[in-house]
């Protein structure tokens, strides 16, 4: 089966996020003074062939741990969607 996956990488709670903090400080200058808790992360999309969605998720989890994210400072969330079979 073929799946599309989206990995969202964010800072671990408690780890300072200088990009988020800077964006948060910039928004009031444009008049948006009701915004808080801004966090800037990154998003990775990929396509993976695996026997089923669980297997795909497990492999992506391993890939996150070993390369895609740095578990010392980053948390990640994985979303797997089945792709329609190609003709």
């Amino acid at each position: 089966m073929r799946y599309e996956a989206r990995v969202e990488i964010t800072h671990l709670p408690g780890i300072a996020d200088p990009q988020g903090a800077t964006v948060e400080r910039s928004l009031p200058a444009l008049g948006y003074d009701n915004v808080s808790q801004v966090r800037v992360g990154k998003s990775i999309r990929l396509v993976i062939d695996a026997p089923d969605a669980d297997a795909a998720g497990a492999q992506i989890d391993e890939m996150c741990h070993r390369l895609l994210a740095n578990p010392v400072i980053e948390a990640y969330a994985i979303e797997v969607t089945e792709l329609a079979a190609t003709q």
Partner: protein
Amino acid sequence: MSARVGIVVFPGTNCELDVAWAVERLGGAPETLWHADAELHGADAVVVPGGFAHGDYLRTGAIARFSPVMDAVARFAAAGGPVVGICNGFQVLTEAGLLPGALQKNAGLSFLCETVECRVETTRSALTALADPGRVLRLPINHFEGNYVCDETTRRRLRDDDRIVLRYVRNPNGSLDDIAGICSEQRNVVGLMPHPERAAEPLLGSTDGAVLLRSLLATASEGAAVA
């Protein structure tokens, strides 16, 4: 015999010649090590220099840690060999798990290129063995991601075990506990954001980095004598 210093070169490394020049000037024998070669060619010490290894893609140091040479560096470090990561090299060593913690974007999101004061916090490391404890060194920094972070347990261990090697006198980047450099449990692996090789000659405005590189050469020679 002069200590042989292997200087790791990844695609995107750009401080290898500065390190080689400073090492040679201080009496060492520099040799560059290509990242795809899983061999240290008999080096007595290893320097992972600054730059933008693999373009800093994904995260600084994230791709570099998988280069074949890093397996050899890890084995050398485990055997007690002196390894120093400067700037991007520090980032590579944390990604490789040879040093704890991580380096993230500077507080304020400024790229910093200036000379800063750093205090020698311990002389029990491969990089500070010959330095005077408490001495303030003027060293150049040149980085966007030098903001050291780690969890509270690691921070306590670094403090309790006297593994914070250099601290900024005035914190330029938001680094936890003013950390500019740390060492491993065995004290042979050191990572620091400032560039000692750029402060090893009066023409460059400071010679304060020389004592750090001399310490590395002395540690390397001891190791070579033992081996």
